[in-house]
Every structure is written in C-alpha cells, then in structure tokens.
C-alpha cells in the first residue's frame, strides 16, 4: 500500500500536471467523491434512459392505477416504485425525468456562465460608467427573491420548460457576473498582467488569455453549485405549473400532479422528491469538494 502511495507521489512530482494535484486533494474529501459518484450515476441513468427504463414514461396502464411499490402489499415487480393516478410507471418517469432535469440544468448553467463571465469581464476591465451600469443592474436582480423573479419572468414569457430555464438563467446571472468581476479585479492588478501589456497584448488578449484562466476556479465552483440551484428552481417552477407541462416527465411537475394523492399514496410524491434531493445533494457535495481542492487558501 505504501509502495503504491509512493509511486503516485513521484508520478505527480514528475508530471507537472495541475490535474494530478487537484485529484490528490479532491479524493481526500469523501463527501466530494460521494457527490461526484451520485452525479456520475444520475448522468448515466439520464443518458441510458431508453435502455434501462422498464416502461415508456407516458404509457398509461389502466389496470394498475396508484399501484404501491413492489415491496408493499399489493405491489408487483412489474412497477418497482409503483404507479401514479393514471397508471404510469413512477420509476420510468423518474429515469426520464433525470434526462429533462440534467439537460435543462446544464443548459441553464452554461448560458448563465457564458453571459455572466462576459458581463463580469467587461465590468472588471472597463471600470467607470459601464462597470457601474452592469454591476448595479446585477444588484437590482439580486435584490429580488430569486423564485419570485423567475415566476415574474415565466408569467411574462408564458409557461413552458424553455421559458422556465431562461428565467432561471436570469436569476443565476448576477452570481456569475459578480464572482467573475471580483476575480478579475484582483488578477488585473498583478504583475503578470502588466508584463503582458508591456509585451504589447491587446485588451481581448488580456481579458481572455491572460486574466480569465486565472479567474476560473471560483467560477467553476459556482457553476457546480448553480447546477443544483437550477435543478431545484426548475422543479419549483414545475411544481407551480410554470415549468414543464404535462405529460413531460419532469420531477417538479410529477410532484404537483400527485399532490392530491399524498394522503392515500405516499409513493407518488416521495420518489420524485428523493430524486430531486439526491441530485441537489450530489452537486452540492461535489461543488464543495471542488472549492476545497481548487482554492489555494484551503490547501494544507
């Protein structure tokens, strides 16, 4: 065992790879590894939904309405997690729901990341009127409760999954913009940026090649944590009937459709809720671990 450890250490010393160093810190954090495992498993489930789901998510089995999970009295292994009020298999809907939640979450985070980084870079480099304009409008957006803002945006655009995603992008944007600007301001004053300028680097080169890579660590962490917020907000909007519309198998929508049966058939709300919980938990744990591994101040 100790030989193996020595071997890894010498490898890391020989290979000047920041990824190796990152992985050494990351794997010491069991929560983070667990979180990444959850994320990987759910991603696999989403990708392979067609193969592993036992039923079609929208197939209605009229002979099996509100069937309990397999291990309870009256359940069958045909519907492992039971069925909902119109006889759809809950397990299959959760599996397909992972696909919806993850892809929309990914879309939201990517859009918010790109636009937020662009705004933060512009604000951090311009200082002055443009900076004030961008950052104060971000402050206004932050001052509104996030879900309320999202509801207003969806109310204006009309309820649909894509509009809900756009609303969540708008809600998340200020976090990325602020974080990027703060990182840009610290990096911009450093000597290596001055050195680039003395070499003749133009503004775009300074922004994207010199400064931005050094600002990415906190932004990546925020991206991971933002993913879980996005999944949660989308589920909330779905629950309120403003997100995915039936019969799309989306977790929040599943919860809201089944709400009236919560007394009689607990499984119709419990399993979609657990699915949301595990995705959010997985991304949060992974995000925390990323922060610990990427932030030099937290390194031992």
């Amino acid at each position, binding site marked *: 065992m100790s030989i193996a450890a020595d071997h890894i250490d010498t490898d890391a010393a020989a290979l*000047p790879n*920041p990824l190796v160093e990152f992985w050494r810190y990351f794997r010491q954090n069991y929560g983070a590894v667990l979180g990444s495992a959850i994320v990987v498993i759910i991603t696999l489930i989403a990708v392979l939904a067609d193969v592993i789901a036992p039923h079609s998510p929208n197939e209605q089995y009229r002979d099996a309405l509100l069937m309990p999970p397999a291990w309870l009295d009256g359940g069958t292994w045909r519907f492992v997690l039971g069925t909902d009020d119109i006889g759809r298999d809950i397990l299959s809907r959760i599996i397909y729901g992972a696909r919806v939640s993850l892809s929309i979450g990914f879309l939201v985070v990517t859009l918010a990341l790109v636009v937020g980084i662009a705004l933060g870079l512009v604000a951090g480099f311009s200082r002055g009127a443009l900076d004030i304009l961008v950052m104060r409008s971000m402050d206004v957006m932050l001052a509104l409760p996030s879900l309320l803002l999202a509801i207003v945006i969806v109310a204006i655009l009309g309820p649909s999954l894509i509009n809900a995603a756009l609303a969540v992008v708008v809600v998340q944007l200020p976090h990325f913009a602020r974080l990027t600007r703060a990182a840009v301001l610290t990096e911009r004053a*450093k*000597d*290596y940026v*001055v*050195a*680039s*300028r*003395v*070499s*003749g*680097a*133009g503004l775009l*080169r300074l922004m994207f090649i*010199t400064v931005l*890579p*050094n600002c990415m660590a906190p932004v990546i962490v925020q991206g991971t944590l933002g993913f879980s917020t996005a999944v949660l907000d989308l589920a909330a909007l779905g629950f309120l009937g403003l997100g995915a519309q039936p019969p799309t198998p989306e977790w929040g929508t599943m919860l809201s459709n089944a709400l009236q049966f919560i007394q009689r058939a607990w499984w119709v709300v419990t399993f979609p809720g657990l699915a949301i919980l595990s995705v959010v938990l997985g991304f949060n744990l992974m995000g925390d671990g990323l922060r610990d591994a990427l932030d030099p101040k937290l390194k031992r």
Partner: protein
Amino acid sequence: MNNTVLTCHQLCRYYPVRDSLFGRHKTIKAVDGVSFDLSAGRTLAVVGESGCGKSTLARLITMIEPPTTGRFSLGGADGVKSMRRQVQLVFQDAYGSLNPRKKVGSILEEPLVINTRMHRAERRDEAITMLTKVGLRPEHYSRYPHMFSGGQRQRIAVARALMLRPKIVVADEPVSALDISIQAQILNLLMALQDEFDLAYLFISHDLSVVERICDEVMVMYLGRAVEQGAKQIVFQRPAHPYTQALLTSTPFVDPGRRAQRVLLRGEPPSPMNVPHGCAFHQRCPIAEERCHRERPELRDVAGRLVACHLV
C-alpha cells in the same frame, strides 16, 4: 561612443487625488521633471527612498502609463507598437510577474506571438535558446512557474524581457526580493546579457551596494525630482548633494576603512501630496539656510555631475 537609445525630457507624472468625499482635488507629483539620456550598453541606476517616484518612472518608460507632461524618445522608433518592442520590464516580484496558469514556454513565447509572425517551431527554438542563455535548461520549457525557485523565476522573467531583443530593459528592483547569494548570480547574469545584446539598463533600486556594482551612471531621486545625477565614480566617491551624502553613509560596510561618519536625517520624507515650498529637502537638510525655503534649486553642473542644491 555616443549611441543614445533613450532620451527623456522633463518627464512628469501627476495623479489627481481627493482626500475626502467633498475634499479639494489635490495632485500627487510622483515624477516631476526628470530628464536623462541612456546609451546602448550602459546602465543608469535610479536610487532613492520608497515613494520618491522610481517605480512611476519605470511605468512611464515602459509605456504602462502616459506621462502627464514631457516626452521621451527611443532611438529611432516611432509609434507605440514599435516603441513597445524596444523597452521591456523586469519586475521585483518574479513569481507575480509570471502567469501561474501558463507554462514557461508559452510565457516566453507570448511576446513573439503578439509582435511577430514566427511559426510555432521557430518560437519554440527562440524560447529554448533564450532559456539556455539565462542559465536554465531546455527541459524547463514545459514546466509551470510554481515549480521554480526564486532565482530561477527571475531568470525566466529576464528571458521573457529579452525575447523581443529590446534595446532597453527597465529593471524595477530586480534583485531586492532575492537572497544575497542569488542576487549576485542574477546581477552577473544581467551584466553578461548586457554585453551580449548591447542592452541599456534602467536599473531601479534602493540597495546602494547593488547599484555600485552594476551601474555606470546614477540618478538620485527625492520626491519625484532628481537631486543629483552623474557618473558612478563621481557620485559615489564625492557626493555633493546633502541627501546623496546621507543616503551613501547609510549603506553598511564590512570594511571599517570604508565606514564614514553617518549623516543622520531627521524626520520622514514629506508626503508627495504636500511637497514643501522651495527645496523639497530643506526640512531635513543639515545645511539648509533661508534661501532653501524660498527657491527651488534646479539641476546645475558641479564638477562633472548635475546637482540640485543652492549650497554646493
């Protein structure tokens, strides 16, 4: 041999500041009328206390900031782009001046990518040649800055400054963050490279023993103005300005024969926001008289060097 590569005429850099929200606008005169010439293969040392405007001067010459008034010309080059290629900068903090996310190779190649149309392979050859010239090995090409020691990092910074074959290198306290033994190595390297590339150095330092070793000419600055400038031998052996005398006797020597009676100065240098009327130095000057309160002394020739003092 009069091969002037840099001519500065009355360079000034003022910063507007406000001391409170509704306060009056004031001006910090960081550099206030500095003139000098620099020839190829020569080293001009700029010495002085913190806050005397040394680093601001470096920022002006390297075109990080424009001068408020005054002008400077670089032998033959016109246009910012070609002027930029002539002047490069070596920083005090070598680690901070190297991008931590880039490998040494791409740090060295960046000036070439921006300013030339060389191919990737040519750039790589240039970078490796320069690495060996500054005493590093070709395999250091693909390492990150954090894997080097302080002296090696400063060697990388020097190599980067030379990639465009500039005529002038501005060195802003290049060795003051290094160990004494490493300081000597870097100074030797700088001198060897000066001979090889016929470089002109503007060497900024507060360490007089370093300055004495490397420079040909000295300019002593006090609150943004030169108080004495001239050849090293004259300034070091027979300092004329009372401030230069105080500065020189503050250097510790091991050899008791070289120790002079220390000239101790009273007080602190005044704030550059509030430069005294007349000679900026008169409040601390041991020989100041009434005239120094009223009239600001201009630089004039005294026995082969320029001095700004009424009384020499």
